[in-house]
């Protein structure tokens, strides 16, 4: 795929990966063998019929490809850009066993972007039900849940605390990875399905989850508020000026458009030598944003090695190309004070890999006496997030011991009619996993409300039909909705 030159792009916020043109897409689609096992479908958290849509691309039927994609995924332009495909569909691709895997994500993005360009929207026939559904949080989990519930005929309202919808897609992921126009287009598609967005609404404080169910007439509620509460390192110097969370840096830059300061009012700390602690996707975003804001040097400080870095392979690769200096097996021990309340440097210690820990990764162990100092004036922590406490403070929802919302296997919470999914249940994960959770919760909500789930029989058509009765899937416990004309 064509990309912006690393030297040039490190100075602008334009998208890095330029995307496939028709010729690229056709060539890439031919590489799919249409193997009978279809491991990619199982590898996709939302079960997209991947060979199906690739075959349509090969037939130059892009609209047909879009139809297949939107059967299961309403947001192909977003997922094509931000999914960690190497751990999902592309990671299990049969072609990938001997050659490079089929670039499924890029093909998905091609189809999604073509749809935006052509103005295609797939609005299915929706038979209204009398049900009112509330969705708390307009990030990927909430968007996916809202889409499914709207398609099932519910009157869906999505609440968002910020002044613009999109959640992490808006405040977290920078423009050069996911342009705002793409988010706007996908949210407009939801609006066309009848979904209403209410911004500036802090659920829990303006009204509670219980009030939504008891007083505001919502028959079911989905909570997808994300994790969000950033973790600080807890080392000396944490509170110095010049030390901030990646969430703060990214929110200021992306949502509040501080990169256009002073034409936009929100300021941003500008660093000359920026050190970002962590090596996940958020860390990569923070580093590349810092570079684009004009930093002379950007360092990545990570206590494990490159192999353990949780970021998408493509992001690490892009960051390296753009000149980020990676310091693997290095752990901060203190932030150094300039005597005036600001950071002037960082003290680190070298690490080596020891025995595997609970996560299966080799545990990094400090090497005694290997401390060293280096100069940095902006330190960004991208070391993960904890559960946001607002839901726990304001509702009776049962939380688990880490403060995340506790659910059963169907994502039902301890309060009847209230479901939850995404980061607020699992802890920080990916956009597509949150979307998968939003869709799973939607299935449970439909079952709870007694709405026939159109997706299940559709999926089952690929099977042998042994588990079906009169064309209705047995997994649907609620097929007694008979309408007499």
């Amino acid at each position, binding site marked *: 795929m064509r990309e912006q030159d690393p030297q040039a792009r490190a100075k602008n916020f334009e998208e890095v990966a330029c995307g496939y043109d028709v010729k690229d897409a056709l060539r890439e689609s031919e590489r799919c063998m249409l193997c009978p096992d279809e491991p990619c479908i199982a590898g996709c958290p939302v079960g997209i019929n991947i060979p199906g849509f690739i075959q349509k691309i090969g037939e130059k039927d892009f609209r047909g490809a879009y139809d297949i994609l939107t059967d299961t995924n309403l947001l192909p332009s977003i997922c094509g850009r931000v999914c960690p495909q190497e751990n999902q569909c592309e990671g299990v691709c049969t072609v990938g066993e001997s050659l490079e895997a089929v670039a499924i994500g890029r093909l998905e993005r091609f189809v999604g972007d073509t749809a935006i360009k052509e103005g295609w929207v797939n609005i299915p026939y929706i038979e209204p039900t009398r049900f009112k559904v509330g969705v708390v949080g307009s990030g990927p989990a909430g968007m996916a849940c809202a889409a499914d519930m709207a398609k099932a005929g519910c009157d869906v309202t999505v609440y968002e605390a910020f002044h613009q919808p999109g959640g992490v897609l808006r405040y977290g992921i920078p423009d050069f990875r996911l342009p705002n126009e793409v988010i706007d287009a996908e949210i407009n598609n939801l609006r066309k399905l009848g979904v209403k967005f209410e911004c500036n609404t802090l659920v829990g*404080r303006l009204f509670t989850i219980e009030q939504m169910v008891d007083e505001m007439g919502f028959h079911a509620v989905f909570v997808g508020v994300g994790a*969000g509460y950033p973790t600080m390192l807890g080392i000396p110097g*944490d509170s110095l*000026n010049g030390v*901030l969370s990646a969430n703060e840096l990214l929110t200021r830059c992306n949502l509040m458009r501080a990169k256009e300061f*002073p034409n936009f009012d*929100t300021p941003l700390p500008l660093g000359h030598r920026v050190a970002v602690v962590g090596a996940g996707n958020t860390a990569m975003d923070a580093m590349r944003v810092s570079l684009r804001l004009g930093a002379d040097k950007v360092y990545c400080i990570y206590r494990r090695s490159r192999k353990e870095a949780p970021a998408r392979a493509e992001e690490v690769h892009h960051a390296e190309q753009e000149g980020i200096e990676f310091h693997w097996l290095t752990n901060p021990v203190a932030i150094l004070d300039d005597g005036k309340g600001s950071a002037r440097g960082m003290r680190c210690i070298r690490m080596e890999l020891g025995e595997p820990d609970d996560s299966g990764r080799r545990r990094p162990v400090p090497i005694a006496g290997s401390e060293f100092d280096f100069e940095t004036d902006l330190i960004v922590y991208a070391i993960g997030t904890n559960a946001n406490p607002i839901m726990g403070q304001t509702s009776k929802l049962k939380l688990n011991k880490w403060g995340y919302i506790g659910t059963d296997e169907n994502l039902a919470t301890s309060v009847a009619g209230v479901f939850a999914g995404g980061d607020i249940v699992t802890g920080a994960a990916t956009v597509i996993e949150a979307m998968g959770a939003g869709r799973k919760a939607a299935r449970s909500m439909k079952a709870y409300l007694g709405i026939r789930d159109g997706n299940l029989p559709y999926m089952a058509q690929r099977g042998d039909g042994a588990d079906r009765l009169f064309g209705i899937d047995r997994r649907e416990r609620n097929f007694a909705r008979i309408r007499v004309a």
Partner: protein
Amino acid sequence: MSNFELVKREDFSDVTYLLEVRHPMMAKAAHPGQFVIVMLHEHGERIPLTIADFDRNKGTITLVIQAVGKTTREMQQACQVGTSLYAMVGPMGIPSPISHAKKVVCVGGGLGVAPVFPQARAFKEAGAYVIGVLGFRNKSLVFWEDKFRACCDEFIVCTDDGSAGIKGLVTEGIKQAISKHTDIDEVVAIGPPIMMKGCAEATRPHNIKTMVSLNPLMVDGTGMCGGCRVKLGDKVKFACVDGPDFDGHLVDFDDLMTRLRRYTKEERMAMDHWEKNCRMQKQIESASAALASPAPASAAKR
């Protein structure tokens, strides 16, 4: 919810003004001690403002604002009755715990005079003996005296120059209250960090519980950015979701004040940029006014 209409405005002085915003749902949900985040326009920044009052019948939220920076000065110009804010979200933060204290001193200084009012009223409604201590620079800046007198059993005004009430800082008022009453259960202090620090120091030797309301820099106000983190003893808390009220004897005020200065340079830049734009706007206006009325212009030429 996109229309946050301003239904009332009152100017207390050159720099202090009151805005009443229509938001019936928030008026119903708000409690003393909570705050909102406001955006004036699409290009604006999100600024936290403590809720100074709320009227559940009228469905309004009252904000008292001091024009100190670019945004608050721009609001002072732009916010007139009938106009709207671009965004207002809240009520945020944990409501102030109105304890069963029998005798309470409510201290407000500068920015903090307005937000301490709903707490004084709530304590009064809970049956406490309320002593109000308010600090202003001089007599002309005094406001809401009547509102406080209505809910305070005792009321002490302190001014820097002695033009009203006793001469001195609010800590003088606290000392006066403490020497008169030996049975004060709690002090609530809201104002600039340096004032709250002074209040906490004034009560520490007497071991009187002292609650302060912190106002660090914030972006989202929902616990997501960590910009508002404050040091409490050896713990770190986020003022937006863990506060904004904390035990004043534990707060590291020096740290808070250092962190408040983080964007001094950028704040100056924003102000200069805005003032320059205002001047240009004025020049354009006067130039176009001159063009619109050609008679005097041509007369001048002759």
